[in-house]
């Protein structure tokens, strides 16, 4: 029996560009280190094993330009290794310390094994550069790596400064080529933020497809005949795939989602908070502020403060069960849809990559089980990528999708509200000035060119949607505000230097060494 429907799994891997060479230790850099240990390396390990065992699979994953830039950065690679070595040291101590706690001792050993394995994958297999792994899986035809906005800027709120939208896309595509050795075929629009017409810019950059939240397709015009179960073409000829809510819900939902299972690992009981201060001090913030270490001994247990010890074997069985349940539900879904639509539906299931492993510890195992079950057991369901699907299904309806995002309430509110709306006047002003500079200095070299390139970098870094996002979530608001202000102020200073014709080279060199993203950036894209 041949398949009657497709599952298109998308993992959106992204972190904002956080790199502070001026500090020996910088708390927010830990986001990257934690994600490498808990998400990226486990995923890479799974893909490697699937390849080794010759299990055919198709996955789609965005690796955003800021994340790719950090993964490829020598300073951060070395700092990650330093971080991991400390983690290994802590796990070794934990194996000793828990000698009389059998319920934790095997967990300490598990963490020690995992961390040592992570080191081996990071250092020995990929020479500290995990981009090699993603490139390898893509070159093998298993993984479709999407690009994203250059700094994950939320495009709909740049609508009045189209040069910024163009730059977000073009810089990303150029960077992708330098990292993956070919042009990007697909893109994950930052926060799925789509404004009708932006697909023209994708088209100009050779990008063939992107992804939208459900209502972006459903509220498109004319009405989409197949709902979100088939892609549509925009008038530019670029295809748009819409998110399936049902499969999203099973993983994301606070009430019904798998990650809340009581046997899964509890995120919030970390030894960084639980253990005696002097003992844990070398492994937390240098100022003595307790933070997560990544070593956690409890399971969710239930809505109670009393937590039971984590049992990896039981959790693993749960992950297998949940993968089976997910596949079963997709099979029922495609079975029904195939009958109703009269064609093979494609179910698009996108998730934030960092959910897997970091938040949902068993997420990578779940994914591994799911891929294996579908590849080996399912007769109805086949894993696909947007590229493969479009190759087989050339005829699709032409519609104009609707303005949308996958954020809270589905539009722009999360990035445009009382906590963060002050940023846009500065972004827009800087963008217009960048346009002015690029139009005025079409061919620059030497110091002037360096200043122009740095100005473009500062603008892009300010535009990351992450800063507005953090201001709204209320987590590390002060840091996010500082980042916006610093990048805009650096931009304005560069603007003044350039227009006055006097550039402080020492200062420029310092800023270049800090905000070193996109070394080959072409600032001319900002010209009108």
């Amino acid at each position, binding site marked *: 029996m041949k398949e009657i429907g497709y599952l298109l799994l998308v993992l959106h891997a992204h972190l904002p560009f956080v790199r502070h060479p001026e500090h020996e230790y910088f708390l927010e850099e830990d986001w990257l280190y934690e994600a490498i240990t808990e998400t990226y390396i486990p995923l890479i390990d799974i893909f490697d094993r699937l390849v080794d065992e010759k299990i055919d699979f198709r996955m789609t994953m965005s690796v955003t330009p800021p994340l790719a830039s950090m993964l490829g950065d020598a300073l951060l690679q070395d700092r990650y290794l330093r971080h991991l070595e400390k983690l290994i040291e802590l796990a070794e101590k934990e194996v000793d310390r828990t000698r009389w706690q059998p319920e934790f001792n095997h967990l300490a050993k598990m963490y020690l094994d995992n961390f040592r394995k992570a080191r081996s994958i990071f250092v020995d297999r990929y020479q500290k550069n995990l981009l090699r792994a993603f490139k390898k899986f893509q070159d093998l035809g298993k993984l479709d790596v999407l690009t994203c906005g250059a700094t994950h800027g939320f495009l709909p709120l740049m609508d009045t400064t189209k040069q910024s939208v163009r730059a977000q896309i073009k810089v990303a595509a150029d960077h992708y080529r330098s990292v993956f050795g070919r042009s990007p075929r697909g893109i994950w629009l930052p926060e799925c933020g789509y404004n009708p017409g932006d697909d023209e810019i994708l088209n100009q950059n050779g990008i063939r497809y992107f992804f939208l939240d459900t209502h972006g397709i459903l509220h498109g015009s004319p009405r989409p005949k197949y709902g979100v179960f088939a892609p549509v073409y925009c008038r530019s000829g670029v295809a748009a795939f819409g998110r399936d809510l049902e499969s999203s*819900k099973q993983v994301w939902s606070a009430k019904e989602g798998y990650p*809340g299972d009581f046997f899964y690992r509890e995120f919030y009981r970390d030894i960084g908070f639980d253990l*005696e201060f002097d003992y844990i001090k070398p492994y937390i913030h240098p100022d003595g502020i307790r933070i997560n270490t990544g070593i956690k001994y409890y399971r969710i247990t239930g809505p109670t403060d009393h937590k039971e010890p984590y049992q990896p074997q039981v959790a693993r069985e749960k992950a297998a069960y949940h993968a089976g349940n997910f596949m079963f539900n997709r099979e029922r879904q495609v079975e029904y849809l195939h009958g109703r639509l009269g064609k093979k539906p494609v179910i698009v299931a996108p998730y934030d990559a960092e959910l897997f492993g970091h*938040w949902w510890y068993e997420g990578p195992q779940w994914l591994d089980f799911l891929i294996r079950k579908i590849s080996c057991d399912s007769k109805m369901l086949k894993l696909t990528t947007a590229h493969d699907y479009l190759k087989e299904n050339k005829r699709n309806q032409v519609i104009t999708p609707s303005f949308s995002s996958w954020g*809270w309430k589905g539009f722009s509110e999360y990035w445009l509200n009382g906590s963060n709306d002050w940023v846009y006047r500065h972004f827009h002003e800087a963008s217009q000035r960048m346009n002015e500079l690029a139009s005025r200095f079409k061919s620059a070299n030497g110091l002037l060119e360096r200043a122009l390139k740095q100005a473009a970098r500062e603008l892009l870094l300010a535009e990351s949607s*992450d800063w507005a996002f953090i201001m709204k979530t209320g987590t590390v608001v002060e840091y996010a505000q500082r980042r916006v202000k*610093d990048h805009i102020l650096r931009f304005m200073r560069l603007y003044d230097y350039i227009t006055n014709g006097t550039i402080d080279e020492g200062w420029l060199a310092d800023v270049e060494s800090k905000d070193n993203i996109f070394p080959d950036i072409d600032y001319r894209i900002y010209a009108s």
Partner: protein
Amino acid sequence: MKDLNSLSKKELLDRAKQLKIRMPYLYRKNELIKMIQKKEMASQAVPGTKPQSAEDKKPSLRGKKLVEKVSSRRDTAGDTKPYYEPTYHTEAAKDESPSRLAVIAARRVAPSAPKGELPLSYEQTKIVLMVRDPYWAFVYWDISTSTIQKVTGLMREHYGKMRPILRVYDVTDIDFNGKNAHWNFDMDVILDAKNWYIHVGIPNRSYLVDLGLLDAQNNFYLVARSNVAKTPRDVPSDVIDEEWMAVDFEEIYALSGGFGVGLSSAEFKERKKQLLEQMVSSPGFGITSPGVTSPGMWQKGKRKGFFFEVWTELLVYGRTMPDAKVTVSGEKIQLRPDGTFSLRYFLPDGDKNLPIQAVSRDEDDTRKAEIRVKKDTIWG
């Protein structure tokens, strides 16, 4: 500071007037209290104290915001006019004197922002319209010093009879010439707020906004005109492509939400809204803190009630010749270069024995020690 909460709304209004807070009746009581407190603080504050520069800054773990906002809303129940939510930046809201435009004009003559802070104005006159969702838009504006002076002059000339407004036009499918909008409405604004949320109210329409002054004779003085922006659709399109006509679009629509057959699009919308609210779209990295950023079931491990936990660890340490071989329960342990060692164990209740043995390098000499520990925790 006296407890403002104990004052009546009327007393608060009087206080607000003394403090020259404009249009205090616009605010709810708690908002008014905040305004008054801020005002009183500001009058005591020492000018020139500013946040340190970025470079000296430690990774931020404190919760203090650099930019605080006061927002207020006037409820217009029964009023057909769209209501609005003004928001202020503290920078802008600081001076609230009647001649505040003049004060601002004076400030803008020297617009240099404090170190590490962004400029308050870019010395240009413009208004920018952005769409938030199918029903709401947002505008921000900037007014140059010379324009502010003109505006101030006009307002003085028509003292008390001239008010700043936003005029919102529906310009869907129109090449707007200033007169041919489908319809328009006015909203009072506070010029110094510099931004405003507008309840435009209708999805899938294009809007344009003028910022200006309105005098008693209804003459409108334009200060700045915005770009055009379109609100998104909130329901399926009416346009149907014959060639791609769905047999039953309602069903496809409902299925796309995954809720089975038979839901109307209105029900679907409600369902999706609920789902989106409980779903965690785009959690980013959660960035060490949850809330909307992480799956909701992982409510941050904050304990509700009082609690008390006590644990015990056993620390064993000693020293021998640096080249000796030391074992604990038969397992070799690592000595520091100076021959010292430390062992640390979680100590549960009960009896524990820990045999330790040191053997000299030439294996001639062996010393033994056995640590016996009995531990009880008596909970009272």
